[in-house]
């Protein structure tokens, strides 16, 4: 499977690289053609670290996390003679979710090495399960140079190019191409992301005929939205190109790196954790594990939508027991619950966490230390059995919910539904995603 994925990855990267370079050239973005000059992963890494690491925007003070996966770097042949080194990056700025990026290093016409960073901004109107993978990507692909300078981008729907991005607005930050860069671009527009309030109007009716009563109202939630505004008509000759985005986000090594503990995706056992890169796959894994082990499964959802499932030793067919901290048999902490600010007693407390934050700390045995994951929800599975109420929380469930800050959500997942509940009972019931 791993070989197959890498094969697809290589092919995807080649297509992606080719298409993007072609488009950037057609739009006069001053990008350089690739020229062969016996580039190697080692030479690319050495050059990049000497040239960029201290200055590049991707390393600025706003970064919470940045990892260059040089161990996953690959040398790709992009045409008959030219090659590039492609390195996946996980990057997270303060207050933002992590994102997957690609660093490409190649030799330009002058036989000098050059770097490009590719970012992927998802269209948040997509279903949640499509907000992480790069298969049939919909959103914006942003291209930067090694310093992080904005070089433009592409608006893409299901891998089909729909326009060229000449301006990027994100929160208070606006980046745009200069006139020379835009000149020659046949399609212009900007891609903007920011906080918006999304409101849904609703009505409820009861009764019949003259006795009927209808209530109207609306509910709003804060959301982060990205939208595209075209400043020119889209050139029919330009649009419609299909671009193959690398699918590296789904590869096992990246998953392992994201897990912090070298975890592949999979179910928990009596004495080990389960892990899924997103809740969509995570719910499926939980329910499969429940059927296989005849035990309910419990887990936590991180702010990045990862799902960590806890060992099942203390669970049974109808109960989940969360027993923090989980330790190895020799008493080493593997995972613990942090209810409150983890830096509270730390003199370097920088206010990054709030007193009502809840997180889990996972020992990172590969690198030492522990990784803190802020969590947004606790989830447990319910089997569907005759004589049992699988769509409602038990009184104990509601009691547990009352012990957490109100911003932590609580879910029950069963084969049919995903049920959110709080200390007072069910809040919403929806069809289970990714069923």
């Amino acid at each position: 499977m791993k070989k197959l994925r890498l094969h697809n990855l290589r092919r995807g990267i080649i297509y992606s690289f080719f298409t993007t370079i072609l488009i950037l050239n057609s739009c006069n973005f001053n990008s350089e053609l690739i020229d062969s000059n016996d580039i190697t992963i080692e030479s690319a890494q050495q050059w990049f670290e000497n040239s960029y690491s201290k200055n590049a925007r991707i390393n600025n003070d706003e970064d919470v996390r940045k990892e260059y996966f040089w161990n996953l770097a690959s040398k790709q042949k992009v045409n008959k003679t030219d090659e590039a080194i492609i390195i996946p990056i996980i990057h997270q700025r303060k207050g933002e979710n992590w994102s997957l990026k690609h660093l490409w290093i190649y030799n330009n016409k002058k036989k000098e090495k050059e770097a490009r960073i590719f970012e992927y901004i998802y269209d948040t109107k997509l279903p949640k399960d499509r907000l992480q993978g790069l298969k049939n990507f919909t959103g914006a692909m942003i291209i930067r140079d090694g310093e992080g300078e904005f070089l433009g981008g592409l608006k893409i729907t299901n891998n089909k190019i729909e326009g060229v991005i000449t301006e990027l607005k994100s929160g208070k930050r606006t980046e745009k191409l200069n006139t020379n860069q835009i000149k020659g671009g046949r399609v212009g527009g900007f891609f903007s992301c920011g906080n918006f309030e999304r409101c849904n109007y609703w009505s409820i009716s009861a009764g019949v005929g003259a006795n009927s009563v209808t209530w109207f109202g609306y509910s709003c939630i804060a959301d982060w939205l990205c939208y595209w505004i075209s400043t020119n008509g889209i050139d029919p000759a330009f649009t419609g190109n299909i671009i193959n985005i690398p699918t590296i986000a789904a590869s096992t090594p990246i998953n392992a790196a994201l897990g912090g503990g070298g975890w592949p995706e999979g179910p928990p056992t009596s004495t080990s954790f389960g892990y899924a890169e997103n809740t969509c796959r995570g719910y499926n894994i939980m329910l499969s594990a429940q059927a296989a082990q005849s035990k309910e499964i419990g887990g936590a959802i991180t702010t990045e939508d990862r799902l960590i499932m806890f060992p099942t030793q203390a669970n049974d067919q109808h109960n989940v027991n969360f027993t923090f901290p989980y330790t190895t048999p020799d008493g080493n902490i593997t995972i613990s619950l942090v209810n409150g600010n983890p830096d509270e007693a730390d003199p370097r407390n920088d206010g990054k966490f709030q007193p009502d934050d809840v997180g889990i700390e996972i020992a990172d045995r590969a690198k030492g230390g522990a990784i803190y994951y802020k969590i947004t929800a606790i989830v447990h599975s319910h089997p569907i059995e005759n004589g049992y109420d699988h769509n409602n929380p038990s009184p104990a469930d509601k009691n547990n919910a009352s012990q957490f800050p109100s911003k932590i959500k609580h879910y029950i997942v069963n084969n049919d539904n995903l049920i959110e509940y709080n200390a007072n009972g069910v809040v919403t019931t929806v069809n289970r995603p990714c069923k």
Partner: protein
Amino acid sequence: MKKIIVLILAFFVIAYDSQSQFNSLLKVQNLPQSVKMAFSEYFSECIRERYFHEDKGIVEVISYKDSLLKDNYLLSAVIDDRFLENPTNTYYTNDNGEIFIFYDGDKNGNKLKQTISLTSFDELKKLIGDRVYIRPQKTERLIELIDINGNIKKTKVKYLIAGNTWNTTRYIFSDDGKYIISKSL
């Protein structure tokens, strides 16, 4: 003469009632026979399945009408004095001395908070007596474990149970007195 006898009997009944220790509490009197039978069955299950411990245990009942307007009774086995945080002035007891404390619930079975007098509260404590354990005061649970760097670290211990801790069972009654059972998960 007959009138005098009736009056004397009535006096004794009133006098007997006024000597009850639980004048401020409301004893549920009008339960249908099928409900009484269901309650008795649940109480036996609590003993048989060890929901009760040693000689401790009472049953908490949340009585409500669901969204289909059916009579629902949510029964839970209680072995500690958690009733002190949300006391009720209503109870039911059968001839075996089995105690059921009653709460009204909303249509989802959530217990509705009620305010009771201090007298009722005292009487409730007397009614339940030593049938439940007294819970200790909550304290932070700390344990010393070894972190990834080999250092001893004080770590908070937290147990959470997502499941049917109190063996809650929902009895849903039809108009004909028949019922179905749905256990919490």
